[in-house]
């Protein structure tokens, strides 16, 4: 619960989750819905771009949280040594 709270405190995580939901909806629609001939498949392209963007946000958020979690442990270990 504490860890979840930490993630929810990070705006990058919230943005990442929201845009990942949007990306999934758009990609599914892009694949399943017919596209007007001569027009770009905007749902698919935008969905893929959003997936990359939100993936990046989530990656950096999780990486920083893990670093923050490891930091104190390492310090304790070095003190013990």
């Amino acid at each position, binding site marked *: 619960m504490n860890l979840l709270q930490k993630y929810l405190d990070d705006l990058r995580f919230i943005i990442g989750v929201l*845009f990942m939901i949007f990306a999934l909806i758009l990609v599914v*629609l892009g694949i399943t819905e017919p596209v007007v001939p001569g027009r770009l498949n905007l749902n698919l*392209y935008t969905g893929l771009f959003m997936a990359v963007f939100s993936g990046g946000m989530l990656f950096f958020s999780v990486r920083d949280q893990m670093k923050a979690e490891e930091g104190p442990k390492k310090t304790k270990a070095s003190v013990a040594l």
Partner: protein
Amino acid sequence: MKLSMIDYGIIAVYFVFVLGIGFLLKRRVKSSGDFLMSGKSIPLWITSLAFISANLGAQEVIGMAASGAKYGIMTAHFYWVGAIPAMIFLGVFMMPFYYGSRARSVPEYLKLRFDEKTRSFNALSFAAMTVFSSGVSLYALAILLQSLLGWSFEVSVWLSGGIVLAYILTGGLTSAIYNEVLQFFLIVLGIAPLVFAGLHQVGGWNGIEQQLPAVMTHTWQNMGSAADNPMGVNIFQMVMGLGFVLSFGYWCTDFLVVQRAMVAHNMSAAQRTPIVAAIPKMLIPFVVILPGLIALVLTKTDGSFALPLKPDGRMDFDMTLPVMLSHYYPTGLLGIGLTALMASFMSGMAGNVTAFNAVWTYDIYQTHFKKNAPDKHYLWVGRMATLFGILLSVATAYLARSFNNIMDLLQLVFGFVNAPLFATFLLGMFWRRTTGHGAFWGLLSGTVMAAITQGITIAEGKGGWMLSTPVHEFSSAMAQAFAIAIVAWTSCFVITIVISLATKAKPADELRGLVYSLTEKPKETGVTWYLRPAPLAVAVLVAVIALNFVLR
């Protein structure tokens, strides 16, 4: 425009997140400082994006697309001339005083630097202005939803007001700032595909250049005479009126935007906030102005695309963006695009309300009603001010629906108040001899001169109410607005100097940290040299000059 259940679902998901942010941040709000100033703990990337997002309201998103269709790429002057230089000036020269003086608001800085009457004049006019701006945003959103989706005016106004109230009341300024960042990404990612699809259809920038007259695709080439360009302004009016007076007056002194930099976690971050914000800001024209140009090309080349007409037969440019969304976006992306539009309205409204509640609590209530109450009391007053601000915004939206001319008049009056303000700050920060009496009477005379200039000149049927035969007719309302700003600023500047020389200045000890010559310059430690405010500012300035050159 017809939305499907998926589009409504997307809008619902967004609002769940918006409200969720407010509730998540609720436990962080323990004092009035947390509620009204975010506890001065926000990281640089968030303050920077919030800095431009607070301004990325309805006028920017809908209005700039409309101006793009009406004036062409010259509209980019509102960014490259009318914003970036002022943002850089704020970061490099003015933030050290705002942040270093420990003032909690822009009016409070005026109190520290000058006196109570100057602060009260600024606080009262600013508080009224923010509430009315917020109401105008709400009104515009309700009208848009009514015309696009057939939603009732009442439901749109109360629902939007209720959502903004809920997330500010729970999470305070931090919640508003976090949501502004969320809204920034939504606006950019929700509208950029439109530009991509439009450019793909019209053959890119080359296609636009081939289809439209040269005056629509150049920023500087037709500025020699006001008659040569669709804006009807010449180079002096553009650079002095927009680029100096109005731009610096807004970006450097308006608490709505300055507040976002003042909540940064240290002085260096506060200084870099507007400079870092200038980087995405200079690229926003490509998202909000290009749709207007693309729409113009489509009206010529695509038989299935047409902008709606006004009752007088002219094209309704305000509908450019909604019509483009409807034309290009399929189910799903349409929901995202519409959510982006709604987000832009709410972002503008939330920015105004959070600035209003801080100014009301610190500069009006604490100063004039109850000075030494416990902090919990001011937290309560801040919350009540939020509620009060939203209710006034709703009332303003109804007022605007009934009497549209009243809104024009109010905006005009507040324009008069804002125009001379930068002269007061410039003299106050850089000339230690400036006095409180000089600042107050300078501000007042600038406002009066602005009203007189509007009253004796005319443009597009507006103004000229003081004389039966106006002394001058401007080529456009924009040229008139720029000229009014120049007159207001100059009178404020001159009167402030004259009265300051005739009155007694504050002793040097009282001005340390408030005036340039008496303040130790901040020393940067622990920040790589190229990330410091001055080198960053130079890089941004070079980039914006390059943009102007490429599209000259």
